[in-house]
């Protein structure tokens, strides 16, 4: 089996509230998986568990064969849902920080991505628009040669031009030997890049499968299906 991520019976409670209930999910290498659901559906909790930032109450997670910890952190490249870089930094500083932090950081790749995103290396992060910050964060995350990329709401709140650049960067950086997990509620804009989709609602998987099979079976696009499920 070439599953890079294996989740079995995963349950997470905050006090009495169940944020995730008995989640099963397998992700193969080379696949792009969309985790779809409205705010509060459990997407961020799932990601925090994958990142090892939270501990499950029940069930298990295996990433590259291991439970979340030092090894899994080294193979996951994570784009948080908000800017993770300091305002005083320039683009150059951000590159330096990523190079210091991550052994798998590919400097050549980062130059290529920054050029593609049209980001000036001397620009200060505090002077950037939301779209520019998102592009910079994504460029850093995609410049790592990771086994799993986790992108949390990569296009939320960015302008259409930046959104297209972000989508192009994701497609261009698709790798057969790694997996991508992308959360979004902007299904229309992103559905064409998913191999597999998972509809998450109230902490449970309502529906999951190959995107193309679901389109064929339900005779509608994933966005229409999303509206039917959550509308």
């Amino acid at each position, binding site marked *: 089996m070439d599953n890079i991520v294996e989740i079995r019976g995963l349950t997470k409670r905050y006090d009495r509230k169940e944020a995730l209930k008995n989640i099963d999910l397998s992700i193969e290498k*080379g*696949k*792009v998986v969309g985790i779809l659901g409205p705010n509060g559906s459990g997407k961020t909790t799932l990601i925090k568990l994958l990142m090892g930032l939270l501990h499950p109450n029940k069930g298990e997670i295996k990433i590259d064969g291991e439970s979340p910890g030092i090894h899994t952190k080294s193979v996951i490249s994570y784009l948080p849902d908000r800017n993770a870089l300091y305002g005083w930094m320039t683009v150059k500083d951000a590159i330096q920080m990523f190079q210091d932090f991550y052994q798998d950081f590919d400097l050549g790749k980062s130059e290529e991505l920054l050029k593609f995103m049209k980001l000036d290396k001397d620009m200060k992060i505090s002077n950037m628009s939301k779209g520019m910050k998102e592009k910079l964060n994504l460029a850093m995350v995609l410049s790592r040669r990771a086994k799993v990329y986790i992108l949390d709401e990569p296009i939320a709140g960015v302008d259409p031009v930046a959104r*297209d650049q972000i*989508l*192009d960067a994701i*497609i*261009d950086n*698709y790798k057969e030997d790694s997996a991508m997990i992308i959360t979004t509620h902007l299904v*229309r804009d992103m559905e*064409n*890049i*998913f*191999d597999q989709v998972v509809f998450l609602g109230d902490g449970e998987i309502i529906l999951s499968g190959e*995107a*193309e*099979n679901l*389109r*064929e079976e*339900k*005779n*509608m*696009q994933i966005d229409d299906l999303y509206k039917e499920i959550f509308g």
Partner: protein
Amino acid sequence: MNFDSGLPIYMQIVEIIKARIVTGTLERGEKLPSVRDMATELKVNPNTIQRSYGELEREHIVFTQRGMGTFVTEDESVLKSLKATMAREKMISFMVDMEQLGYTRDELPGILEEMIVEGK
């Protein structure tokens, strides 16, 4: 690009490529864009393009040469029948639309004739 119908995206891309071949945008024997370039152009997952190319290959409309890429067939008869099939589909959908507007099939040749004369 937005894919609006209920069809899987790979099938919609198959139709796009067939249209490019029939209209001559892609010529007989021409190399198709690489899977990656096509994925970027249409903003879809490369696996989807791979599947579209696979389907076109199954229908003998394209062929793959190892390490070289995917090419439009050289076989004129395949291209002719592709064109005929697409024309037929267009005619059927035209006829269905006209029937929905309340015309009978018998009226269609007359209407077409008039249109053609007007267009000249």
